[in-house]
């Protein structure tokens, strides 16, 4: 969680200086969700994400240097400098792709789960998405398919209350995302998304259910993003001021909460210096890497061979 927070703060600084030019959607404030869910997964399980997926990528053990390099458009980026912040891939770590089309990867995660079921592999696919995603019709189609075919997939809704600049009350009449699976007979529950232990515990139950062939689950993890929809600023969110609300949520910092609990158990706060060094080194290496030359711009429009994972 701390590593995600500090890496995101570094990305935020790169956005502010103009060094990072691609749209960056920071995960600060939501770290407990990626960390809690990914801790409940096995190495062979897969994670599918969206535009705000730096946290998912890092929680699965994606390379920090490759993420920075990707954001900076370098050859050594995790997507070869083709994707930027919104298109992350780490096949070995089971990050099978993040895309900014809202809900774009939700049916893909369901399809991966279909493949695992057909191949009789005990793997689980997880689809991370925001609260706005439940406004997309094909998420409901996807949930129906997952339930009908009893697929090993977990729908993780990170409800940070805002979809871009719109508060949920401007988009829905009822605060009921935790009921989103009910219509499809998918067990759905609300979790405190700023409590890493609560997320881990709920995710573990959902993973166990998926792995034993009982089908999908949905978790609504309540949280708040501290920064704007896109970019690094804290209080101006694509034209919307929400300073008062943010103050409430800063007091519920998921990292401070877990550190307080650890202190109660006699465990000292994490030494952040090694992470500072790691980030410094990763940034340095990313900055040293070359840009993909324009002469290669037409490469890989078509795949030359299939590559299953």
């Amino acid at each position, binding site marked *: 969680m701390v590593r995600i927070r500090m890496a995101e703060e570094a990305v935020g600084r790169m956005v502010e200086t103009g060094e990072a030019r691609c749209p960056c959607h920071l995960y600060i404030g939501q770290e407990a969700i990626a960390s809690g869910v990914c801790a409940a997964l096995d190495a062979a399980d897969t994670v599918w994400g969206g535009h705000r997926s730096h946290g998912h990528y890092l929680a699965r053990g994606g390379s920090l240097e490759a993420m920075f390099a990707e954001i900076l458009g370098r050859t050594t980026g995790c*997507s070869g400098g083709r994707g930027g912040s919104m298109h992350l*891939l780490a096949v070995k770590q089971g990050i099978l792709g993040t*895309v900014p089309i809202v809900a774009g*990867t939700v049916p893909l995660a*369901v399809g*991966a789960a279909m493949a695992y079921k057909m191949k009789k592999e005990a793997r689980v696919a997880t689809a991370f998405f925001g609260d706005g995603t439940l406004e997309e019709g094909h998420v409901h189609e996807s949930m129906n398919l997952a339930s009908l075919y009893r697929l090993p997939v977990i729908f993780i809704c990170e409800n940070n209350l805002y979809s871009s600049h719109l508060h949920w009350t401007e988009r829905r009449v009822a605060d009921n995302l935790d009921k989103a699976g009910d219509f499809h007979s998918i067990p759905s529950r609300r979790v405190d998304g700023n409590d890493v232990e609560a997320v881990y515990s709920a995710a573990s139950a959902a993973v166990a259910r998926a792995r034993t062939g009982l089908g999908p689950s949905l978790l609504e993890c309540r949280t708040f993003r501290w920064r704007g929809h896109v970019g690094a600023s804290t209080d101006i969110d694509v034209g919307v001021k929400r300073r008062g609300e943010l103050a409430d949520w800063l007091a519920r910092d998921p990292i401070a909460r877990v550190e307080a609990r650890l202190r109660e158990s006699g465990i000292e706060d994490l030494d952040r210096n090694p992470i500072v060094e790691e980030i410094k080194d990763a940034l340095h290496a990313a900055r040293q890497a070359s840009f993909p030359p324009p002469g290669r711009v037409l490469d890989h*429009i*078509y795949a030359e061979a299939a590559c299953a*994972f």
Partner: protein
Amino acid sequence: MRILNYAQAIREAHAQILASDARAFVIGQGLWSPWYAGASLEDLDQQFSRDRVVDSPVSENATTGLAVGAALAGMRPIVFHPRMDFMLLAVDPIVNQAANWSYLFRGQVAVPLVIRAVINRGGEQGAQHSQALHAMFMHVPGLKVVMPSTAYDAKGLLLAALDDPNPVLYVDDRWLYGTSDPVPEEMFRVPIGKAALRRAGRDVTLVGISSMAAECSKAAEMLAEENIDAEVIDLRSLKPWDSELVLASVRKTAHAVVADPGWKTAGASAEIAATISFEAFHDLREPVERVALPDCPAPTSRLEEASYYPGAREISAAARKTLRRKPAQEAAA
């Protein structure tokens, strides 16, 4: 050699794919009903189980997205859209996802997916049951698009599409289901991107797509009676399309007609005509003629419908026009 019709050839390709590749499965609407797919999928669910031949809920988008995800995870799905019109609900997984993923992850992933869509024209089915939308997908980098017009190609292109590591849109046409030709029993492939020379000729090149390729052959016979020797090329693949064969033909005949079962504006015929005009400008004696649907939704009522679809008559008229020949009856008079 055995004679199969177009629908039987599609069915045989499916059966051979399902029998030989455990990764393959078919998903889409109407797979368990002859109403949707004609004989092209008949009893496949009985032969290969309903776990591998999956008649899906009415969810074009999620079903197609599921197929993309399954392809990424090592399967070889064929997602079926019994009416191409309904496939418009699945444009995101096709255009934004399947077509993009190899490129935007710099070749680290591939989407070996077959998307099968059926054109269902005629029969007074109207604007939302009749559309031939191949040109919209021909526009998209990362997709391949094939449109067989014979039973032989229907089988060979489906098998080639399944082998391809990329998303391939396979468009077949219910009008062609009854057409028959010799089809080998073995699993042969028709290479994607290669057109077929259906008739050699000296005077004019007729380039046909899907059902219009058959109409081009009929037009060539009509023209032969007027001593016009037409060369007929069946494009078979639209993306990539075989510009080499087409240009070689046009360089010989100096006249070209492109016949497309889709709309005219920004259609497949526009792309092919533009390429011919640019690449073979100095070999052409007259502008390239195009025969395509008018820029108008499909009507239903019979007289309007009959007037809407061009065929061999319109193709032969276009050939005469580019050759500056008078229509047959006038010439005889």
